[in-house]
């Protein structure tokens, strides 16, 4: 059974009021998306700024309430949980953020930072807390005496290890990783990605992995979700999807990913224009103004996710009635 399941998840933000009081519309940050995260697996979310991936993370973490749709955790709808159930949920879902320089308090010792979730959520004797902190430090590959030090005494990679230890303090089932290696040096990224993979294998964790580095997402994920302007345009098994993307946007995105070798030659698809404002998304398929394969019907009718060779793709090119010669 899926650890976490989102069904028709929607988040609209009311636009800022103008100086004369008129409302300036609704930002449809996340618009009816559905996905499932299986136990011990990683769901990767990719997309450009404004596609709604961070809002999705916030919804999963319970930092924002959905405007529509639901999130089910271990089979229970979050909105319907009683206070005890919500406490259990908050303990079971933890997060690691992008910038370990901002996410660790500079005034707290590492021991206190890692112990904080334990102290606030569980009443444990001090000795037991110290033991748990020691175990967590060991788990993320830091020495025991690190507990006595302050964040400024650590490098970026080590700080991210501390943030991971804190996230694991309450033995969560799901960890939301929002760009966990983007702020780190290239030679350190592999260390942290390997650590995350080892922890997943050891503890059976599920990850929601959000990053703009496609190769890192493809490397870490079992399933990938591609988002554009608040919608899922394609989702499927990670290796399949990164090898043979179907949706024109996914194709452009993966062709824009940088090569790992100078001899690697890919078809280059350069998209024109930029992502439109989510305040006023295009009618029909939201990608159609930039799409190299757009047809008249794309501007009118919104495509739905349909099964194409094992992926779900939202594109009129793959509709059953669309002629197969149109395929790319």
């Amino acid at each position: 059974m899926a650890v976490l399941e989102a069904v028709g998840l929607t988040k609209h933000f009311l636009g800022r009021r103008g100086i004369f009081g008129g409302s300036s519309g609704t930002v449809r940050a996340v618009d009816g998306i559905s996905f499932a995260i299986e136990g011990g697996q990683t769901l990767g979310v990719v997309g450009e700024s404004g596609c709604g991936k961070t809002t999705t993370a916030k919804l999963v973490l319970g930092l924002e309430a959905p405007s529509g749709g639901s999130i089910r955790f271990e089979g229970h709808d979050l909105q319907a949980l009683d206070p005890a159930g919500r406490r259990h949920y908050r303990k079971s879902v933890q997060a690691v953020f992008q910038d370990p320089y901002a996410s660790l308090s500079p005034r707290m010792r590492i021991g206190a930072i890692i112990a904080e979730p334990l102290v606030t959520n569980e009443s444990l004797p001090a000795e037991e807390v110290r033991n748990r902190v020691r175990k967590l430090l060991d788990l993320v590959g830091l020495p025991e005496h690190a507990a006595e030090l302050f964040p400024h005494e650590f490098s970026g990679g080590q700080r991210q290890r501390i943030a991971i230890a804190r996230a694991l303090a309450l033995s969560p089932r799901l960890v939301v990783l929002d760009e966990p290696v983007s702020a780190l040096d290239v030679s350190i990224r592999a260390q942290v990605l390997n650590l995350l993979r080892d922890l997943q294998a050891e503890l059976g964790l599920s990850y929601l992995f959000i990053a703009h580095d496609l190769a890192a997402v493809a490397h870490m994920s079992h399933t990938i979700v591609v988002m554009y302007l608040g919608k899922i345009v394609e989702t499927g098994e990670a290796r399949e999807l990164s090898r043979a993307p179907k949706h024109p946007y996914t194709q452009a995105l993966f062709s824009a990913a940088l090569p790992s070798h100078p001899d690697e030659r890919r078809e280059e698809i350069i998209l024109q224009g930029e992502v439109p404002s989510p305040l006023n998304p295009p009618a029909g398929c939201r990608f159609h103004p930039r799409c190299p394969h757009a047809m008249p019907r794309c501007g009118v009718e919104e495509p739905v996710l349909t099964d194409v060779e094992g992926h779900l793709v939202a594109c009129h090119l793959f509709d059953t009635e669309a002629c197969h010669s149109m395929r790319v």
Partner: protein
Amino acid sequence: MSNSILSFASSEHRRPVAAPANRPLLELRNLSTHYISAQGTRVVRAVDDVTLSIDAGKTLGIVGESGSGKSTLALTILRVLPQAAHIVGGQMLFEGEDLVQKSDAEMRQVRGKRIAMILQDPMASLNPLFTVGDQVAEPIRVHEGATRTSAWRRAIDLLKAVRIASPETRVTQYPHEMSGGMRQRIVGAIGISCEPRLLIADEPTTSLDLTIQAQYLSLLRDLQREHGLALIFITHNLGIVAKMCDQLAVMYAGRVVESGPVSRIFNVPAHPYTEALLNSIPRMGDNRKRLTAIEGQPPNLASLPRGCAFAPRCNVAFDRCRVDAPPSVDLGDGQAARCWLAVPTAAAVAAQAGAV
């Protein structure tokens, strides 16, 4: 004080000047830039004995982690260093003239006109209080003494050249009215406004989205082709190097540890750091294979270990690496590496060529 440093630099002629016919556009010879504390007690060797060259119309990638000295190297070439930094040795031959020897007034004739630079954050490099047109026209008015109206007309043409839609209205707008990708194009337009020979781009696409990055990189490549620009890409991203560059220099702790043609370095890296770096990046095809991580942390430039700076993280280091810093070894075909392990290879190459 700076004068004595400069005269020391000029006395250091190690190699005869090459014939102008095959002369590189920019040649750095044994260049060193150090940050020296006010009392002169602490020295950080941010750029240390760097020898590199770039030919006209070509692209050189300089990769390194934070603190490897790659940005200081860019600032050194333009001579826009912070106060504590001093060029303590070496030469920078640009079209045959040594930039290290130039006066500040002479450097102002070079900056923006013959060598231009694009920085990482377009919002920080554009002035929010001036229109885009004013800012694109400024170098043209300063360097070419163009009139306001003719410089303004040129600004419109430049915006067209960097593929900004409806340039006539965009020139009158302010930076905040544009998206990140558009702002970075405007910085690019300022860069090429005086037809420079060399453009230095310091992490130009780090703040851009993937598809916008692809647009910008293809724009830079077109501009390079149309204007015969030489490009120096400073980046931490080996993917950008693989896509854009002809030559590559890998920096570690202030030194160039390996340099040479891009395809050669990607296929047969000679320095263990380069090799480890190439193995540590995830590749699109090989999902869920374990990455080869480089253990340890990048070194602190203020307290470098003796010998080779990479030795503490190197898994093939031996005794000599921890005592003596390796020299730069020529491996043939333009490839050079600073590693003791490369020394026997170099000897073999030299013997084959009959040079030794």
